[in-house]
């Protein structure tokens, strides 16, 4: 049984800690800015297909999530506070606390990234905003739930930083491919019904991920 109050407390703690240390936020923004400008530079003048553009957008987001979200559990592990948390709250409270925090964090990140992206890259003009927003929303949640779970796993491993993309990419690929397609559709100005398939995939992906997390997190969290 999970107490909502406890979950909220965890989320708040994460935010407070984040504001104190600015660890994730900085890393996130740095990656976004850096990659964006590199992409900008390399794509430069020529006009690339919307395919590639929406692809690049999500790659940026994926990598930024790597530098930011991947640390949620790692930081606890490194500071040795995992044990403290285990003594304070049941596993699932911790998980959902972290999850919610990650979703919010990633959402902020996405808004920034996409804002800059649209601002800076001319070729990338969204036509059907309904699809676009829904894609961002579902994509964020999906990405966050997957990364939270993977982050929990790598926190126990030796090679944390490098391991994250290695583990998460195959898991997130179906998600990425789907959001990329959906994004492309929104740029090409498709009508909602065309993108319904993608949304079904995204939705079921989220459900499955959460279900699995619910079952396996206990094994990861406890030594």
């Amino acid at each position, binding site marked *: 049984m999970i107490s909502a109050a406890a979950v909220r407390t965890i989320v708040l703690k994460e935010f407070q800690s984040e504001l104190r240390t600015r660890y994730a936020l900085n890393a996130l923004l740095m990656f976004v800015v850096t990659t964006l400008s590199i992409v900008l530079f390399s794509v430069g003048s020529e006009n690339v297909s919307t395919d590639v553009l929406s692809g690049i957008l999500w790659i940026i987001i994926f990598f930024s999530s790597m530098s930011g979200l991947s640390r949620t559990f790692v930081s606890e592990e490194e500071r040795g506070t995992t044990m403290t948390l285990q003594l304070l709250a049941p596993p699932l409270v911790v998980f959902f606390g972290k999850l919610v925090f990650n979703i919010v964090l990633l959402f902020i990140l996405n808004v920034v990234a996409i804002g800059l992206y649209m601002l800076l890259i001319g070729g990338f003009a969204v036509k059907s905003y309904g699809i676009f927003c829904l894609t961002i929303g579902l994509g964020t949640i999906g990405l966050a739930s997957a990364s939270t779970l993977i982050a929990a796993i790598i926190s126990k491993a030796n090679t944390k930083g490098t*391991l994250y993309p290695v583990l998460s990419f195959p898991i997130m690929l179906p998600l990425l491919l789907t959001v990329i397609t959906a994004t492309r559709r929104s740029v090409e100005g498709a009508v909602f019904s065309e993108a319904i398939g993608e949304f079904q995939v995204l939705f079921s992906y989220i459900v499955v991920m959460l279900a699995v997390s619910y079952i396996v997190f206990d094994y990861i969290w406890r030594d």
Partner: protein
Amino acid sequence: MLKIVLGIWLTIVIVVAFAFPIVPQPQQWFEYPVIPGLEEKARILFFHVPMSWTTVVAFFVSMIYGIRYLKTKNLRDDMRSVSSAGLGLMFCVLATVTGSVWAKFNWGSFWNWDPRETSIFILLLIYGAYFALRSALEDEAKRATLAAVYAIIAGVTVPFFIFVMPRIMASLHPEPIVNTEGKVHMNATMLIVFLSSLAGFTALFAWMLQLRIRLARLEQHYYQKEN
């Protein structure tokens, strides 16, 4: 005993696979029909598909033993899980290599992101991730647990690929023979050989797995003798 039977079985499959001619309208029982776009090259079907099939099987076997480990906390199950994954990785590489060699002759390039090539490549990535994770964990119990967990996570994402892939990229692959509409391009002979090859490879996998498990167990005993 088992291995002798298996040996004979696979030999027959191989011989038959190459010996029987491929003709436009098969009359005799020993003739294969022409599959458009494959012609003579169709013969690799008998090896290439079973391999990729075994890859998938191996992965799920590994996952199931993983789940069993989480239940029993018995390191033996983890050992089985790893052994299966190891074999899976091998078959995966074989399928990819045979596939790409084949691709070279059929499509002119070793690699083009065909859905099935992509899907097997992802399996390759998953196997790689699985072993990368294992090598990053020292404590046996922890390693076993997390590997199992990862196998499960990867397992549940596989169905998504099956659904997602076709939607986003056109396949160069010939009209699937084991396809959804269930229409079969093979005549009886071809199907029989194909299926017996499939069975043969699966049996081969089972045998090798059991070998590896025995080996691992011996190593363990040796280790325990050590200290």
